[in-house]
């Protein structure tokens, strides 16, 4: 079986994407606490929702990047 080699640059890129997704989800939680005047304890108690939203954002980013990659390929071939 052939080994799949993920370059270090790719791993760094994906870790960065996950971290950015987590930060965005965290900020959404902060915004909702302020907007709905609920308790700051939710910064920790709602961590499950934050992780869930982060995963959604990350998946969206993966899909977007894939679309961009495909579009680039098609565009480059035509050129």
């Amino acid at each position, binding site marked *: 079986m052939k080994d799949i080699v993920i370059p270090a640059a790719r791993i760094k890129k994906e870790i960065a994407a996950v971290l950015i997704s987590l930060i965005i989800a965290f900020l*959404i*939680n902060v*915004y*909702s*606490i*302020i*907007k*709905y*005047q*609920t308790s700051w304890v*939710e910064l920790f*108690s*709602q961590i499950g*929702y*934050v992780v869930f*939203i982060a995963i959604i954002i990350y998946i969206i980013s993966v899909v977007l990047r894939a679309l961009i990659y495909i579009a680039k390929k098609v565009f480059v071939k035509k050129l």
Partner: protein
Amino acid sequence: MNKIYQSRRDFLRNLAITGSVATLAASPWLGAFSNTPFKGKGPNDKVRLSVIGTGIRGRQLLRLLFTFASEANVTVSSLCDNFAPHLEEALEICHLNGVKPKTYTDYRDVIEKDKPDAVLIATPLHEHARATIDCFSAGIHVFCEKSMARTLDDTRAMYDAHIASNRILVVGHQRLFNPVYLEGMQRIHNGELGTIGQIRAYWHRNNDWRRPLPNNDMKFERQINWRLYKEYSAGLLTELMSHQIQVANWALQQSPVSVMGTASIRFWRDGREVHDNVALIYSYADGTKCIYDSMISNKKYGLEEQIMGHLGTIEFETNRQYSEKDESIKAPGIQQMISDIENKVFDKLPIGGASWVPEIAVGDQGKKIIENDQFSDTALQLEALVNFIRKGSAPEKLTKEGYNASIWTLLGENAIDTGQELKMPEKYII
């Protein structure tokens, strides 16, 4: 199983513990037990009561009377009914409680021979006025079941006789003595519900409202099922609504200015003359409306009086107060936001062609008005009656509440019969 009710003493003790005494202090009920002098009968003198009309309600009054009779130094001196089985059953209740009252078949014998301190009148509605006025003429105090009388003129005559004789007239609107109502009314009058815009009241049952006839003998039909015939009763209006229009007037601290209504015999088409399905709107001078309906072919919603202000709602029969603010436990902010986003997405979906979003009811689950509601308001009212007799007078406000509720009940019947919006004729204003 019979409910175990709190005694007056226990009830007052509980009020003191919960701190509700202050809010109830102004109530006519506690006023009856205040330390004002006894101008009627001394505390050591036995109060003699007679029950005129020993049907289901009369016997219920009798049973409740015996729950406090010895403590309050009260006795039942006589019973009166022209229907022998009812009289015998009432006599049996008295015997079980060690009391041997005289029995009569004509209320005039109660007045002339027994001469009680007060009578409890629980006869069919059309007989209230004659018996009440004759008792007043003989100097006897009267507790009269609601509604006061079958006609507007009889109702007025009863009130006039009460004033002329200076005798006590207590009408059987027991909610006036119900601590849930006393506390709730205090809150309404203090403005806790804000501006009351509407009162909704209803009384729904699902039965034919008939009582069984002895041996199914139709000769007793009108005597036993008098509530079904217009000659004796206005049906759901005088027997049920009378209570609730009294509550509405009490909550708003005013009487209506007009009433309109409609009614039908929709389901129980069995020869009865009174409606089994009624709907009325009472209007008040400040614009408040009391919307009333009663039916006896569906009981999903049961019985309620809903006092609806811009800050909250009280539902008396279920002992609950609700806030217009959603005081239910808040969902976490992030969940609320997700929910709002979902709502925004799906609310845009057209329903039935047009863009339409249903109004969502306030989610507040409400709070009990008072915690311990195990009491019989009728027993409390009867206890108060005994104390009024000892004091020689009762608050006139109570009598006026009963009078106005009775008059507006009958005006409701007239509005239905004529199909017009009616105001109170000058001659019935007190």
